[in-house]
């Protein structure tokens, strides 16, 4: 007998999980075909908010790669929607006219954003928040526009709003009800949440109903039912989701709000099943991942003819994925006279906990600010444990503050305690998998058990379990992350091999160390080039073609393929002569934008690639390396020369530092700042190296960061003379160069290796001297790159020319 034909409409999390379960139970039973209307393989929809918030990329949230479908012989049609099901002939028909026959059919079409039926909802700039495309719309809008309005103050709306804030937009959140997330939080917790989010920069417009979306082609604002208006260039509808049931309905399958299924996920039509957000089970439509996965398990067993417990519905707990907010909610949230509740509120620490107890059983949980007890309490709720013998203290183990130590200690966790709520994976299952399959990373645990593969909140706990189970072995394993997909070797192994085998070129490294992709990729090529330069110091010939565009071209590529030119301006100090030259060049080459940069210099933006050498020649100034993994600028204040508060010559020291360290290759960009007094006008506290003048000396701050990982610098040392400043920064810089991973900023590096360790290591004068010697030797090899391009015709032809080809028409 041939394989049965299984067709699935929908390529999302619930459906694909069902297929995964089927493949586990009966890998050979079905010939599987999947239709997905999005152009992507199955991705983790829950993580869209982290993509929007900038923590991950679309690539990172793909759960099943194209290869996975191939390996499992699944025929996949993406970008293709099913428009009809012929339940008599047992065929589905796609929007491209493709007809595919089935023996069994799974409908897993998920749901769509509910778009409010108000006038103007079809204007440009109005989007839902449901898929990668919505995310891309928002990211794109954030580059062009300033003001966003999010309609809906629920889970999805707040996550979208946080993402838009991260993208630099001003965000208004409009909510119909007086409380945010009123389905998950009571008004006390809701108020705390609102305060926190307001502090993060969200603006709330409560108890307003949208009447109309204003604008011509593109949205310009909203009008509410009370007649008031706000401005907006982007409107995100996050008022709810609506199951996608159209095709099922038109095909004669019984639907209500969703596609109605029984406890075995069977619809009203034989051989047709529904699973996930499109399915309605016992009058419930679920939008969270845990119940959908439970449904998938039951459906897989049903399809494979394996006896299974029926699906009897789920109790769900929710959290909010917004940084700085820790909340958990499950079950009923309001108490009444028949229920008793434990309430703890600690305004000082921003903690609020409410446990609703009905008939001696926990029936609801709201935790804000401290969710350590969530998995334990949730388990008690699900298992309907009798709490009549317990005291309030033992129910709320972690008390009313930040939590008693050890309450969530891995060792004290019961084996059946759920770690990953989304996938229902217990601590015991994870420990067993780690031991049986010798797993060493969170990703491997996820691949084996599914733990951590959905919302990802439990990943840190999984890491703790790994550490607890493996002990010291975990530490070793942790270090070993491959440099990139081209090799299995880690950074440390590659560097050790380079030294040991005396490797001297990128090509040689990749050959000798057996790179899978012979010529590497954009991750390893620049990294290997850097490590070679770091090891071989002045003996290494840089491989320019292993550098990415900006460093290769010695200019920053702009989105339209033009470049920016930013000449060196030591310490932010310029002269009338230089300003004239810049002005002349800007005029001569019709430079579209002349702008002061954040690093106290002047940028010329929109220069054509083929004009670069001529622009540099006319400027007659050095490259400011505004594109490089190297020292960018040294920002200085005016200092003692003019300022009445200045205690030190900050400009002088800044210029000296910039002249010493310019052009040096570093693992990532390095920024410095020198201020002449603690008022710190040069903002030295958020630089990789910040120097602050005090009466009779200098303070040296390190590992500050004003960008993505905002971090105040740590005071590293206080010294008397500028010579000491330079010596200490030199030693620190070289130690960073020799031990950091490529693309690791000083802020991340210091947090990884520990500030105390660096202090201790650099306390020894001999060590510092040796580091400075290696640094000085390396600094000998650099030439001014713009000048090289002007003088070297070969360089000009190779990198900067565009050739005209006469075409005879």
């Amino acid at each position, binding site marked *: 007998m041939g394989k049965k034909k299984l067709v699935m409409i929908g390529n999302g999390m619930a459906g694909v999980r069902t297929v995964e379960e089927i493949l586990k139970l009966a890998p050979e039973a079905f010939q599987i075909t999947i239709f997905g209307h999005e152009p992507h393989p199955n991705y983790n929809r829950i993580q869209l908010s982290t993509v929007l918030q900038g923590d991950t990329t679309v*690539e990172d949230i793909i759960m099943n790669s*194209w290869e996975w479908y191939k390996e499992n012989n699944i025929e996949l049609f993406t970008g293709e929607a099913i428009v009809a099901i012929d339940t008599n002939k047992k065929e589905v028909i796609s929007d491209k006219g493709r007809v595919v026959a089935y023996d069994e059919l799974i409908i897993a079409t998920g749901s769509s954003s509910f778009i409010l039926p108000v006038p103007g909802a079809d204007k440009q700039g109005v989007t839902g928040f449901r898929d990668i495309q919505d995310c891309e719309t928002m990211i794109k809008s954030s580059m062009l526009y300033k003001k966003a309005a999010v309609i809906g103050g629920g889970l999805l709306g707040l996550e979208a709003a946080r993402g838009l804030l991260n993208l630099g937009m001003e965000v208004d959140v409009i909510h119909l009800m007086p409380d945010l997330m009123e389905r998950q939080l009571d008004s006390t917790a809701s108020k705390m949440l609102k305060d926190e989010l307001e502090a993060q920069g969200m603006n709330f417009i409560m108890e307003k109903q949208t009447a109309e979306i204003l604008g011509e082609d593109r949205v310009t604002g909203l009008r509410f039912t009370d007649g008031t208006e706000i401005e907006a260039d982007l409107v995100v509808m996050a008022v709810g989701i609506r199951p996608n049931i159209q095709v099922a309905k038109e095909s004669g399958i019984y639907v209500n709000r969703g596609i109605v299924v029984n406890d075995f996920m069977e619809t009203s039509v034989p051989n047709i099943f529904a699973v996930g957000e499109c399915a309605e089970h016992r009058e419930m439509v679920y939008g969270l991942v845990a119940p959908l996965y439970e449904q998938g398990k039951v459906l897989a067993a049903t399809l494979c003819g394996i006896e299974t417990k029926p699906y009897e519905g789920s109790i769900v707990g929710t959290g909010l994925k917004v940084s700085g907010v820790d909340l958990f909610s499950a079950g009923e949230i309001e108490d009444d006279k028949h229920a008793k509740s434990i309430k703890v509120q600690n305004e000082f620490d921003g903690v609020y906990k409410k446990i609703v107890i009905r008939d001696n059983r926990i029936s609801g949980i709201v935790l804000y600010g401290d969710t350590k007890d969530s998995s334990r309490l949730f388990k008690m709720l699900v298992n309907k444990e009798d709490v009549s013998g317990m005291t309030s203290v033992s129910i709320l183990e972690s008390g009313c503050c930040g939590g008693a130590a050890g309450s969530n200690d891995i060792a004290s966790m019961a084996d059946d305690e759920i770690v990953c709520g989304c996938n229902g994976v217990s601590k015991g299952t994870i420990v067993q998998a780690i031991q049986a399959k010798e797993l060493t990373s969170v990703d491997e645990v996820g691949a084996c058990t599914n733990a951590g593969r959905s919302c990802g909140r439990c990943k840190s706990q999984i890491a703790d379990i790994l550490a607890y189970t493996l002990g010291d072995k975990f530490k070793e394993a942790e270090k070993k992350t491959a440099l990139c997909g081209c090799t299995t070797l880690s950074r440390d192994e590659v560097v050790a091999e380079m030294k040991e085998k005396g490797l001297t070129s990128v090509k040689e490294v990749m050959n000798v160390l057996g790179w899978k992709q012979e010529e590497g990729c*954009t991750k390893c090529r620049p990294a290997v080039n850097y490590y070679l330069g770091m090891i071989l110091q002045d003996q290494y010939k840089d491989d320019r*073609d292993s550098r990415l565009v900006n460093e290769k071209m010695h200019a920053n*590529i702009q*989105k*339209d393929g033009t470049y920016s030119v930013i000449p060196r301006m030591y310490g932010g100090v310029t002269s009338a002569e230089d300003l004239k030259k810049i002005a002349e060049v800007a005029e001569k080459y019709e430079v579209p934008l002349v702008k002061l940069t954040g690093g106290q210099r002047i940028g010329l933006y929109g220069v054509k*690639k083929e004009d670069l050498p001529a622009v540099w020649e006319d400027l007659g100034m050095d490259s400011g390396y505004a594109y490089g993994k190297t020292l960018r600028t040294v920002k200085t204040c005016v200092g003692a020369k003019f300022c009445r508060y200045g205690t030190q010559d900050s400009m002088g020291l800044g210029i000296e530092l910039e002249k010493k360290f310019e052009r040096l290759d570093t693992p990532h960009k390095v920024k410095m700042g020198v201020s002449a007094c603690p008022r710190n006008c040069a903002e030295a506290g958020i630089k990789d190296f910040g120097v602050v003048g005090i009466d009779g000396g200098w303070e040296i701050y390190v590992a500050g960061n004003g960008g993505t990982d905002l971090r105040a610098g740590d005071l590293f040392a206080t010294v008397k003379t500028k010579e000491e400043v330079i010596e200490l920064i030199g030693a620190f810089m070289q130690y960073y160069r020799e031990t950091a991973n490529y693309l690791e900023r000083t802020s991340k590096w210091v947090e990884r290796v520990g500030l105390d360790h660096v202090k201790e290591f650099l306390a020894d004068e001999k060590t510092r001297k040796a580091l400075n010697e290696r640094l000085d030797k390396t600094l000998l090899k650099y030439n001014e790159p713009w000048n090289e391009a002007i003088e070297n015709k070969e360089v000009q032809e190779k990198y900067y020319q*565009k050739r005209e080809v006469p075409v005879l028409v």
Partner: protein
Amino acid sequence: MTKIYLTDYKTLPEKVGQVFQLNGEEIVLFRLSNGEVRAIENKSPHPKGGTLSEGLVSGEYVFCPVYDWKISLIDGKVQAPDEGKVKIYPVERDKEQVFIVK
């Protein structure tokens, strides 16, 4: 279909894209490390566009310099998980002369 002479083979540096302008259209020639020459349109299929001539070349792929998409120089296909296709031109070599067919 016409054969258009672009340049002599010896003027093409290895693994660095060379831009040729034909009536406003830009075509990039890549000389790969195996000696072969490939020609593509200098336009990334990424929704935000951008050029490809400055991309890092590895084997028979070029990485888009702005958004890091990996693009095959054989069939122009963008590699998963991204999707899209770059216009490819057949390259012909007559001794030292390099032509494209369009």
